[in-house]
């Protein structure tokens, strides 16, 4: 694993095909047993993240992106339960280790940036206290050491006058500043993996761009493995190396970003690309044109989950679940009738 950025941009093969991934999710299943029915939010999700790589996870609302991120940290909200699969990090299955062990992974080996910076800081303790508690918990720093490091961290995420800011409470910072503080907290203990769940949805467009640029710099600078969850294909194109397209709790297609945009092969991916508005970045209209609604899976049955909305659906699609299979190096697909039609691709790819 090197700091070779050029390599990282091309994808895992570039970082050295033989290197083991930093984080590997294998066959993850998560279910929410509710009172009258069970929601199968994640069904056999598989992906991996390498050092220096930025993996984008895209999919419509409800496709299970956040639940997947939460299960990596073992933080699925009640009544959700991980019912199968593995989350391998540094050779250990995080799903199997004791509670105390997972707590020392959270925030120290794996950092998390949430969607909503406005409500993610404790309103009754100062910014400094936030840093102090993680730094003393994971690195055993003293009060004064923690303060020095906190100033440094705030500076590095571009907060002006950091020493002053330490004494503030969260409500006195702007949304962008709060998100920077949260990012600084997430990287405070030099994690190996950074998971960002729609880190910019709550922010306006200019701030979004700044935060994402910061994200890029941090990943490159520390050679992190990063997972960026988003609705926005524009963001994926600009800030990710590889993409996982999720639907109904499964991977539909995964490929290096350039490859995916050049030759999208899954009908769902093509659909997504087709409805990216020409002026990217406007989240609201992204999925406006795939007919039908994304499912909330409440019963397990065979067949392609996308079948009800797919324009290439065949009899086989309804009977058998397509498995994820490589169609090119680094490019895998779960579909019986992939899009090969150059015209459709070209239209989609013109984004």
């Amino acid at each position, binding site marked *: 694993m090197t700091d070779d950025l050029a390599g990282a941009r091309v994808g895992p093969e570039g970082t050295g095909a033989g290197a083991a991934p930093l984080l590997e999710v294998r066959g993850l299943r998560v279910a929410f047993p509710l009172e009258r029915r069970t929601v199968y939010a994640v069904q056999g999700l598989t992906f991996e993240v390498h050092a220096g790589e930025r993996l984008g996870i895209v999919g419509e609302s409800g496709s299970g992106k956040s639940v997947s991120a939460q299960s990596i*940290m073992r*933080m699925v*909200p*009640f*009544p959700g339960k991980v019912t199968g699969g593995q989350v391998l990090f540094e050779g250990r299955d995080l799903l199997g280790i004791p509670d105390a062990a997972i*707590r*020392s*992974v*959270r*925030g*120290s080996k794996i950092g*998390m940036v*949430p969607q*909503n910076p406005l*409500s*993610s*800081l*404790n*309103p*009754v*303790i100062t910014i400094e*206290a936030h840093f102090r*508690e*993680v730094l003393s*918990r*994971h690195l055993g720093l003293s009060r004064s050491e923690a303060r020095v490091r906190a100033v440094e961290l705030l500076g590095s995420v571009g907060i002006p006058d950091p020493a002053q800011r330490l004494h*503030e*409470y969260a*409500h*006195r910072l702007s949304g962008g500043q709060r998100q920077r503080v*949260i990012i600084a*907290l*997430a990287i405070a203990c030099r994690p190996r993996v950074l998971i960002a769940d729609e880190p910019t949805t709550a922010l306006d467009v200019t701030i979004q761009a700044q935060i994402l640029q910061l994200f890029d710099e941090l990943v490159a600078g520390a050679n992190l493995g990063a997972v960026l969850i988003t609705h926005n294909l524009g963001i994926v194109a600009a800030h990710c190396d590889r993409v996982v397209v999720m639907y109904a709790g499964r991977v539909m297609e995964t490929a290096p970003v350039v490859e995916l945009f050049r030759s999208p092969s899954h009908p769902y991916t093509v659909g997504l690309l087709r409805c990216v508005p020409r002026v990217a970045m406007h989240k609201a209209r992204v999925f406006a044109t795939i007919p039908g609604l994304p499912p909330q899976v409440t019963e397990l049955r065979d067949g392609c989950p996308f079948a009800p909305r797919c324009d290439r659906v065949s009899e086989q699609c309804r009977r058998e679940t397509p498995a994820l299979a490589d169609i090119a190096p680094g490019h895998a697909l779960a579909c019986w009738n992939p899009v090969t039609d150059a015209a459709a691709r070209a239209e989609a790819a013109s984004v």
Partner: protein
Amino acid sequence: MLALRLQGCGPDQGPSDGRADVVLSYLLQRVLSLLFVLLLATVGIFAMMHSVPGGPFAFSQGDLTKVAMHNIMAKYGLTEPVWRQYLNWIWQLMHGYLGIPFEEPTMTVNHLIATAWPITLIIGGLTIAVSYSLGLLLGVVAAIRHNTWVDSLITAVVSTAGIALPNYVIGFLLIEVFAVKLGWLPVGGWGSPADVVLPVIAFSLYPLALMERYTRASTLEVTYADYVRMGRARGLSGRRILFNYVLRTSLIPLITIMGPNIPNILTGSIFIEATFGLPGLGSYFTNASLHRDYPLIMALVLIVAALWGACYIISDLAYAIVDPRVRLEGLSR
């Protein structure tokens, strides 16, 4: 409601400037409003009490001669026009003198209250200590064990015994079991320390249940807040999350909810005092009501209302001091 009033100090002003001013003017405004309402209350009660024909002695000492009646009325100043009587009363009040009770003409109202209130205060103080601490504990435990049998058990027992059952019913059950059947504790009365136990238990249940409910609800609300999840995502220990993240914010609203309840408890429950035969403020109020003892009634109402108003203001202030968001920009709730 506090948030609105404190909104004067927005984030544009520095972290601390103008703060003392804001608090002072806020305090002044609240105290003035309290005094106004108190005045209104006394006028209303006074007018009401004098609006009925017959006067206080009409039915208690029915067979007095006209002359004797007039003499008594004159002694208490009841022959003057009502507005004069009110002004006299206010005048006396401003000198700290609450008048002479009709029922016990040899004493003053001040004196009566001075002997009765300590009893009520002891019961009330103990009740607050027991119910608030135990309610808090149970509420937090129920919230931490949300969706388990512990939670269900606490919630069921508390809402049955505390909220749904009248305290005098509980009182009778306690007397029946612990005093009559088991003979461990006295049936009632006042004098020995053992007399305190059953009244405090019976009186505690309702505030305890309230405290448990609110603590549980506000703790649960915070438990699922984003910043608590993020605290967990940073690997903080369960204890740290509980104390620094959950309780520190969830207990703040309790100040405004449970604060104003304190005067209610400190002025006693007429039902509890009757059930256990305690000679406290509540039983004087009951007696005064039975005999239309206006000076005593006015004094008691005034005490309760003033105490209530003061506690209300104090708890609002305490809220503003404890919660940095209110302190600086007002809560947007």
